[in-house]
């Protein structure tokens, strides 16, 4: 079993642990071996505390030997994007600003994850402070797309997507502000879900744009994603924007919600600007649902063309405010060249932040500055109201909306690195979901002729994650894309 252990799903590993076929320690050792074999090519990890993971795995095995089992993830390793606080572990956000930061506490999502017995597994690469769509903005390293190492894995949660695709972890956590879970999931051929804003506590998630950020799961199957979402969802007193809502048993709901569903196709998400291979794969997925008895209807999201502009105003405005805390004084990089206290801010921030973070802070500061606030920020907030209304209106007519996750498969490293606007347009189909606060999932729905994965995005009503997972599960059950793995040998 050892040679294939790294591509077993969390659900399968859970059964293996239950039957005694494998121990948690053996799983972690298999992942250490796998990571050593492929990490030179993939580059998903910023660091990995193997001793901590092995110690937690042994604790899980000891629990199990005593007849205790905390839940389906007990003993299962979960990769963690380096933006979530894990006590005693580095928390760098792939930034020089936090290069030496060690977290003194657990994020709520991590605390809950540990309570289920899951094993935090490594710190995963990302665009610096989650700003980017290719993980090329990491100050540390470039992560490769496991399907073609010449290509980017997407971003900002590129490490979280790549490690799951490469068999370096069965599951991982990421964060999604404008598509940072769904877009890399699509480009790496794995499942990635952004929950409804407020389903998962943001306590201990380093803030990028607080009204848009949300933590969510990566997995190789929908069922595994459901298990990980289950572990982290729920109200938290430490995040007053987290919702008091009943959390269903997502895995059970997968088999209980059988449709047939009424599915909306927004015309604004097809045609010009969409790669023909992506459109073909998504159209084929739509036909699959039709053949399953689902009613397919046209819907309109008329304000789609404004979404990227609105997103980049609101996200950078919030970022310019959130990132003011990195001042060189209390817990960050501090310049050794500063002449006085004020100069300390200027130089520490100049040295600590990379180019994309600086660009976004400048843009965000500009749209909030005196004389421009009404024209940009206030106007964007009003447009956000219209974008949100588009989705809520559409979702009254249908159970979910089907779209491509990205306009094209993964692009080559360096291709858009110097063209921020072109890079920003990668988020064109995902950022609206954050502005509206609704949940979305990306699942593999095909491959391009050159062998790169293509993602289907399913968007739905607020707090209807169970419905989205069930719709996604139906597709997965009838296709084998999730069983294919990149050749990394």
């Amino acid at each position, binding site marked *: 079993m050892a040679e294939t252990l790294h591509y077993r799903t969390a659900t399968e590993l859970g059964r293996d642990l239950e039957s005694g076929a494998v121990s948690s320690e053996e799983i972690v050792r298999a992942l250490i071996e796998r990571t050593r074999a492929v990490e030179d090519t993939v580059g998903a990890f910023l660091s990995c505390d193997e001793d901590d993971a092995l110690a937690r795995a042994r604790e899980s095995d000891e629990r199990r030997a005593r007849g205790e089992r905390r839940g389906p993830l007990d003993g299962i390793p979960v990769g963690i994007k380096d933006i979530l606080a894990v006590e005693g572990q580095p928390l760098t956000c792939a930034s020089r600003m936090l290069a030496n930061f060690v977290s003194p506490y657990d994020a709520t999502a991590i605390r809950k994850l540990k309570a289920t017995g899951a094993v935090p597994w490594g710190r995963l690469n990302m665009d610096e402070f989650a700003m980017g769509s290719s993980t090329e903005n990491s100050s540390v390293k470039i992560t490769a797309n496991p399907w073609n190492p010449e290509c980017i894995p997407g971003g900002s949660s590129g490490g979280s997507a790549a490690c799951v695709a490469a068999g370096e972890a069965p599951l991982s956590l990421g964060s999604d502000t404008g598509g940072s879970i769904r877009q890399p999931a699509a480009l790496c051929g794995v499942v990635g879900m952004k929950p409804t804003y407020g389903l998962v506590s943001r306590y201990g998630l380093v803030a990028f744009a607080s*009204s848009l950020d949300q933590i969510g799961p990566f997995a190789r199957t929908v069922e595994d994603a459901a298990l990980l979402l289950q572990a982290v969802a729920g109200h938290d007193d430490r995040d007053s924007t987290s919702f008091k809502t009943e959390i269903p048993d997502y895995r059970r709901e997968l088999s209980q919600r059988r449709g047939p569903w009424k599915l909306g196709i927004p015309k604004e998400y097809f045609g010009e600007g969409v790669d023909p291979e992506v459109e073909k794969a998504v159209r084929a997925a739509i036909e699959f649902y039709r053949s399953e008895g689902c009613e397919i209807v046209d819907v309109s999201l008329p304000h789609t063309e*404004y979404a990227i502009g609105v997103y980049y105003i609101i996200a950078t405005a919030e970022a310019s405010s959130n990132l003011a805390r990195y001042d060189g004084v209390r817990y960050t*990089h501090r310049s050794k060249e500063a002449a006085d206290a004020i*100069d300390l801010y200027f130089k520490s921030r100049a040295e600590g932040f990379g180019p994309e973070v600086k660009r976004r802070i*400048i843009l965000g*500061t500009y749209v909030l500055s005196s004389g421009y606030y009404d024209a940009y920020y206030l106007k964007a*907030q009003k447009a956000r109201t219209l974008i949100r209304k588009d989705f809520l209106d559409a979702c009254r007519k249908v159970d979910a909306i089907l779209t491509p996750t990205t306009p094209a498969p993964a692009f080559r490293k360096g291709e858009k690195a110097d063209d921020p606007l072109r890079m920003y347009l990668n988020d064109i189909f995902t950022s609206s979901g954050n502005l509206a*606060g609704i949940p979305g999932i990306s699942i593999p729905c095909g491959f391009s002729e050159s062998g790169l994965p293509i993602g289907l995005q399913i968007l739905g009503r607020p707090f209807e994650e169970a419905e989205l997972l069930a719709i996604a599960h139906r597709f997965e059950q009838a296709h084998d894309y999730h069983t294919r793995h990149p050749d990394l040998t």
Partner: protein
Amino acid sequence: MAQETIDIDYVANLARIALTDEEKERFSGQLGQVLDYIEKLNTLDVSGVEPTAHAFPLENVWRADEPEPGFPVETALKNAPAVRDNMVVVPKVVE
């Protein structure tokens, strides 16, 4: 189309970031393109539309006012760049 320009010195000063001349030139050009793209918003009529700051507005979220333990001083100072006598050392701010 006339490219929007950002007064980069003014904004960088507000943001407390020292930029090199090369960065100023590059960012001005790139952000000008982004602003041109954002100009599209001017074609949208938002009169009478209320702004949205949060997707799900919540008001008056209370919890019980019970004291909880916080970090010990040593823990809170662990990541500080310079520490003396349980305090963060900073450059002199008053003459």
